[in-house]
């Protein structure tokens, strides 16, 4: 199989490979446990390389389409179908490639990090199988071009994520968190299904490009829009639906929490895909853009104010994750609100496009620094066994490298140069200020409160005299260091050379997201 056919088949392989890993892991452990660990890590490395290779090809040569079950993977319209695309089609354009890069990097960091933290437990079989299933589900969610396929991958990632949240039973507390996550995600999935049924009943097709071509914004489409937005915003952690986030993020094993953050971003991607590619200018841009902006502002504010009084490290970081999701919703909401003025010199050119670039750039920055913060918190909890901030202290003497990683993550989330949080936040501040000054003021205030809360965490965890009960605590084990180091390197690169990241990865993604006709043209190619 030469390189060309590897590229041609990569959308299917990037989902089939983690699935094969997930299904074969229980069989390997019958023979030898060490072999199974090597098999999983090697398989994950191959998936990461394949994902990055596919993303490079998409960003260089254009979108890749893949038709499942056809005789030629690129032939979207068979000659006897009367001009409509008929099978499940994966459409990997620049925005999907952007998400695949994030998932590949954080997935690799998670898999390598997870080994020492799970080493003392049995049942590692199910852990690796569920993790691979979660990775396959999230990769499928971002590559697909078919609404019902999106629902199926959404449910796969919810169920695998919920099972992983409840993985360490912890006298029932983690299971309570997993129960909340599973229950709310399932209700959300059912509403998504009802919306897909409404859209299918009207337009007779499940493909996003076909519905986008035929979309007239009838009353049933309004219902479908609301029934799609609310579950996807719930899964991303936006505010009136954020109740599951602190419980699930704080009780899951730390490697899984870093990947759950990416899973929430993938649901955010699905929301943007449907808003921008399926509906585009047919919906009422100003009204709906303001609804997304209000969701964003509420998330930012409530996230950071609930984070200040928290006493457990991971619960505090989970509330910050909600607050940063608000930044992404704010940036893309401003882009949506100005989408109708797309002529030269209109509001979209002046402030909307930069806001969208800032919002989308924030997605990759957030995945990197939030993942790093959760992994450092996990390393501290793994070595000391204590989760409460009031009992921790003085770890800067023994866990030096972990402290350095924590400082990088904390400065990045607060938006301090030269780390990558600053790059995306300044884009959001400038463009949102041109759109409406009050929103930018709220955003800057939230950033100041974020810095305050992380100074408090840093002081309680690492500063102070060395405590006697932590006398034998060593630094984190090597696989954990590798996972954290990978994400820290990405943060520093993104901070020192932000224009390289924006020009090559983020701007093509935003162009692909707002250009609905290009998306339709990739599917409707006639032979």
């Amino acid at each position, binding site marked *: 199989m030469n390189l060309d056919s590897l590229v041609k088949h990569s959308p299917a392989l990037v989902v089939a490979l983690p699935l094969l890993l997930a299904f074969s892991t229980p069989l390997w452990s019958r023979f030898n446990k060490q072999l199974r660990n090597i098999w999983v890590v090697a398989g994950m490395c191959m998936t990461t390389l394949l994902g990055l290779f596919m993303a490079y090809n998409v960003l260089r040569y254009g979108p890749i389409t893949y038709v499942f079950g056809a005789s030629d993977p690129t032939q979207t319209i068979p000659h006897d179908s009367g001009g409509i695309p008929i099978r499940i089609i994966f459409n990997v354009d620049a925005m999907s490639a952007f998400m695949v890069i994030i998932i590949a990097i954080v997935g690799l960091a998670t898999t390598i990090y997870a080994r020492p933290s799970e080493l003392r437990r049995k049942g590692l079989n199910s852990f690796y199988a569920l993790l691979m299933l979660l990775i396959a589900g999230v990769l499928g969610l971002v590559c697909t071009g078919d609404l*019902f396929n999106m629902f*199926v991958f959404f*449910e796969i990632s919810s*169920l695998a994520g*919920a*099972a992983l949240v*409840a993985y360490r*039973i912890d*006298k*029932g*507390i983690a*299971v*309570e*968190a*997993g*129960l909340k996550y*599973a*229950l709310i995600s*399932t*209700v959300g*999935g*059912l509403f998504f*299904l*009802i919306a*897909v*049924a409404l859209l*299918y*009943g009207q337009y007779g097709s*499940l493909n996003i490009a076909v519905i986008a071509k035929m979309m007239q914004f009838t009353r049933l489409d309004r219902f479908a829009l609301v029934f799609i937005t609310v579950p996807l915003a719930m899964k991303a952690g936006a505010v009136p639906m954020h109740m599951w986030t*602190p*419980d699930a993020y*704080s*009780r899951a094993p730390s490697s899984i929490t870093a990947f759950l953050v990416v899973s929430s971003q993938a649901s955010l991607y699905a929301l943007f895909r449907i808003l921008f590619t399926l509906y585009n200018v047919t919906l009422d841009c100003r009204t709906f853009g303001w609804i997304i902006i209000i969701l964003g502002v509420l998330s930012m504010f409530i996230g950071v104010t*609930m984070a200040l*009084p*928290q006493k457990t490290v991971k*619960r505090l970081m989970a509330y910050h994750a909600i607050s940063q999701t608000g930044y992404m919703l704010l940036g893309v909401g401003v882009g949506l609100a100005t989408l109708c003025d797309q002529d030269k010199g209109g509001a979209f050119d002046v402030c909307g496009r930069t806001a969208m670039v800032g919002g989308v750039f924030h997605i990759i920055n957030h995945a990197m620094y939030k993942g790093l913060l959760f992994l450092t918190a996990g390393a501290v909890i793994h070595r000391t066994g204590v989760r409460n901030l009031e009992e921790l202290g003085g770890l800067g003497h023994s866990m030096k490298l972990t402290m350095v990683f924590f400082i990088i993550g904390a400065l990045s989330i607060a938006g301090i140069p030269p780390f990558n949080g600053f790059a995306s936040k300044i884009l959001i501040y400038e463009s949102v200020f041109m759109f409406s000054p009050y929103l930018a003021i709220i955003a800057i205030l939230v950033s100041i409160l974020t810095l305050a809360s992380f100074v408090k965490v840093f002081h309680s965890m690492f500063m102070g005299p060395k405590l006697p009960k932590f006398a034998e605590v060593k630094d984190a084990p090597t696989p954990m260091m590798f996972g954290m180091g990978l994400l820290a390197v990405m943060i520093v690169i993104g901070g020192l050379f932000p224009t390289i990241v924006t020009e090559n990865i983020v701007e093509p993604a935003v162009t692909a997201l707002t250009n609905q006709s290009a998306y339709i043209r990739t599917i409707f190619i006639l032979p």
Partner: protein
Amino acid sequence: MLANFPFIAVGIIAIAGIVTMLLRVNIIRIIMGLTLLEAAGNFLLVAIGYRHNSIAPIFTSAPEEKIRPPAEMVLPTVQAMTLTSIVIGVATLALLLSFVMAIYRDYGTLDCRSIRKLQG
């Protein structure tokens, strides 16, 4: 009006499911409400595919006059979607009930007002 009856039934079952999930205290009743909501979703899917005076979309031993074009068969894609949704529902139910069993073993109660150790 009579043709809309399945959709009205979907609405009634969905509202019954949501009300059960909101008002009941026992966790297993809440999961039963979730099952009702799933049933409503599946019912909506099947009801969308119906065509008047048509047969099931199966070619084996089908009557001849229903196959010559214009073929009068019910939509088959929706039935595949419903089947997938039922499978997902079964998996979700198994996971949720296992969680409830673990919670009962450790907390000792099924009252959702007492399963609240994670607060704030």
